[in-house]
């Protein structure tokens, strides 16, 4: 059996061509404290320096033998570029993820600067991206990125309460606003595509059935996702966390190359609904399994994901940085061995 490079493995997986073994990667942040400690920096520092951002992704992937690196780690970089500020908590010990301090509270105030891609930390992220691309030229890693979906992005820049109510109360204006956010997401995702992203995940995190009814999802979320996936030409993933059992088929109709769900999804059922030809990623709880759980739980949970019919075992959310090393090792090890068998949509060479 010829070994593939991580990049080949992931590229072929997206094309549903046979691969040697299941790759270890995801569409959300994969940075760990072990890497940050090795670099001698603090978590808060990785969000503002191209060097640290790229290095921390690389060191984590090397340390744990992942197949991909993915940046950025926080969901605030585009809101910041739109002038919404960012709280980085540089003074705090421990891991606090950045947050958006100043949301708009009126839709009419929303303004998207033409040149937002040159604002805030976005140029820094581009630089980190280029570093990762340069360092992975030999196919050592696939380089991935993600952009929030339009609804989740809208909730990052505009008061979520108002947005949620507006979906019904102020329908026309909110639809127009979501359209504006869709243009923004397309522009950002196209930009990462142009920088050479090997895959892009669109994370419409806040749109699962914990928050929105399937009917509303169909009416107000789906059309925008369809438009995004139509426009992108690199491999794409449609990721939603939380409850997705009721919308899984509609997720599949959005046109992404793959679907990703978290542990709230009943994956074995979803596989049945979707058939064997659809790329499905998921679905373990990264915090519960890799931070809190005992190492002995890891193997059975990862095996169950594979048995339930995923084509790649993905964490349902960002890896929580404070993972136990032995748990991540077990997660990688289990996929390396148990992932040698073909998955529903992807054969083995």
């Amino acid at each position, binding site marked *: 059996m010829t070994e593939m490079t991580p990049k080949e493995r992931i590229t072929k997986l997206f094309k549903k061509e046979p691969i040697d073994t299941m790759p270890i990667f995801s569409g959300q942040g994969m940075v760990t404290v072990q890497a940050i400690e090795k670099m001698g920096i603090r978590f808060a520092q990785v969000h503002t320096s191209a060097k640290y951002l790229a290095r921390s992704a690389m060191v984590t992937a090397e340390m744990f033998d992942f197949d991909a690196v993915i940046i950025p780690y926080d969901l605030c970089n585009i809101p910041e570029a739109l002038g919404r500020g960012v709280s980085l*908590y540089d003074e705090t010990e*421990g891991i606090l993820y950045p947050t958006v301090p100043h949301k708009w509270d009126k839709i009419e105030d929303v303004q998207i600067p033409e040149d937002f891609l040159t604002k805030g930390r976005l140029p820094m992220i581009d630089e980190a991206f280029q570093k990762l691309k340069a360092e992975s030229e030999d196919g050592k890693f696939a380089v991935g990125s993600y952009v929030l979906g339009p609804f989740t992005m809208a909730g990052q820049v505009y008061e*979520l309460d108002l947005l949620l*109510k507006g979906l019904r109360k102020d329908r026309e204006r909110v639809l127009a606003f979501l359209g504006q956010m869709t243009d923004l997401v397309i522009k950002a995702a196209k930009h990462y595509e142009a920088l050479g992203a090997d895959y892009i995940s669109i994370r419409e995190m806040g749109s699962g059935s914990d928050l*929105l*009814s399937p009917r509303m999802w169909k009416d107000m979320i789906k059309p925008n996702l369809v438009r995004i996936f139509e426009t992108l030409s690199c491999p794409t993933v449609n990721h939603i966390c939380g409850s997705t059992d009721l919308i899984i088929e509609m997720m599949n109709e959005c046109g992404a190359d793959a679907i990703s769900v978290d542990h709230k999804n009943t994956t074995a059922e979803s596989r049945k609904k979707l058939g064997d030809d659809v790329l499905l990623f998921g679905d373990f709880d990264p915090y519960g399994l890799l*931070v809190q759980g005992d190492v002995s739980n890891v193997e059975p949970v990862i095996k169950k994901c594979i048995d339930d019919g995923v084509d790649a075992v993905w964490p349902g959310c960002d890896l*929580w940085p404070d993972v136990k090393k032995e748990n991540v090792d077990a997660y990688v090890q289990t996929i390396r061995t148990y992932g040698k068998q073909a998955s529903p949509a992807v054969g083995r060479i």
Partner: protein
Amino acid sequence: MATEEVRQEILKTLDEGVVEYEEDQVKEAAQRALDEGVNAYDAVMNGLAAGMEKVGNLYDQQEYFVPELLMCADALYIGLDILKPHITVEDLGDKPKGQVVIGTVQGDVHDIGKNIIKLMFEVAGFTVHDLGRDVPLEQFVEEQLRTDSEIVALSAMMTTTMMGMKKVIEMIRERNPNVAIMLGGAPVTKDTADLFGADGYAETAGNAVQEAIKMISQLRQMQA
């Protein structure tokens, strides 16, 4: 005094107005309750709050989702604003209603769950001081002292921010031992709440208020 028939009709209109998130209907019915001499507390509890309870059930059954819940809340608040000034001390009797300081702790923007809990407290007749999300830890202490609230309710959805709750509890205990502190949010369990020294914990919005009422009576027994 309104006849029983008129009273029932008004209560029903309030109840349905909340469930159907008809703000205008609630507004008119609340005003009508006052005009017809229906007791304001009765109108809140057996009209608005009764409607909200149904909304809670619809939400649990996945008939309603968060947008609907928030809209029902808006309709409820419109009625509350009209009726609340007419509720008297006698109406409340010896029911242990009190004041609550609530917020999502520093570093955490997840506030949907917190807003639902806030709503439940308001429906139950508590006065709620909402500090919002990403709240600096000291602010909970300051707001409790400023308002002399019996309860401080903390929400956190992430593990690190959950650790901030422990600090808040220590800080509050230092300044004022007679406060009931209640925790909630997805990563929080009964065990963590006990470990951090909290007085109460609730997994869902449904039992949060009962838990709070229990805590307040304990607090009052201690002080008496």
